[in-house]
């Protein structure tokens, strides 16, 4: 699993590549937490999940945990362009009913910046 993290304005953009499971989810969580801790102005987290080849409830739990962190401050977690397996896992877990799932990065970006 590899991740690409960028801060654009008040949005943390995270590209995720590969498999997110019990073994790899802690690295994903730590990388996102490091950015949130050092950039307190971050509001929304935009997760680009096009290249997620596998995700289970360990990875979904990290997403939920970041949603719980951002929500009290008015922030959100937005998923962009999930792979078919990731979309199915998001839907089965019920997470898709809590956080926005966008088909494209452009749509997700517009949601993040309130366009």
């Amino acid at each position, binding site marked *: 699993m590899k991740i690409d993290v960028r801060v654009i304005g008040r949005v943390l953009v995270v590209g995720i590549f590969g498999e997110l499971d019990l073994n790899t989810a802690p690295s994903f*969580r730590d990388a996102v937490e490091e950015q949130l801790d050092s950039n307190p102005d971050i509001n929304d987290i935009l997760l680009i999940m096009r290249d997620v080849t596998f995700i289970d409830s*360990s990875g979904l739990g990290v997403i939920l945990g970041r949603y*719980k962190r951002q929500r009290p401050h008015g922030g959100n977690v937005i998923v962009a362009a999930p792979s078919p397996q990731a979309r*199915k896992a998001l839907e*089965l*877990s*019920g*997470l898709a009913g809590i956080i926005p799932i966008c088909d494209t990065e452009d749509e997700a970006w517009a949601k993040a910046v309130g366009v």
Partner: protein
Amino acid sequence: MSIKNYVTLEFPAVPENVEFARTAVACFASQINSFTLEEIDDIKLVVSEAISNTVLHSYGVSGGIVRLSAVRNDDTLCVTIEDFGKGIADVEQAKEPAFTTDPDRMGMGFTIMEALSDELRVSSVPGEGVKVEIRKSPHGTAKDSDEPEV
């Protein structure tokens, strides 16, 4: 129903082996040609959830062993995952959605496993371990039986 093929694996209950286990079962399941790629993905997810539960909950710091077997009966895949750890006192409660106190856990593992399996059985004797039995056929064509044939 005749056994066409089977495999049995034992490995330590550590996070590094979650990917190994699901990939191994997916590889075995692909011998059933009529499984679609989506169904193979479903099998991977079910196995990943089951092995993750074992790694997270079955043993303390001393660790322990997971025994995984996969059996192909005609076009039905039966996967059994056993551990020999502390077990589950109340299996029905453990299967309830969002049964977790960890903010970074979904508590949806059993829900996902049930949704993607044709049949899921979880049994446990506290102090002796947990046994998870999963049955899946292509397009949900599992034949009824009292016991998964393993």
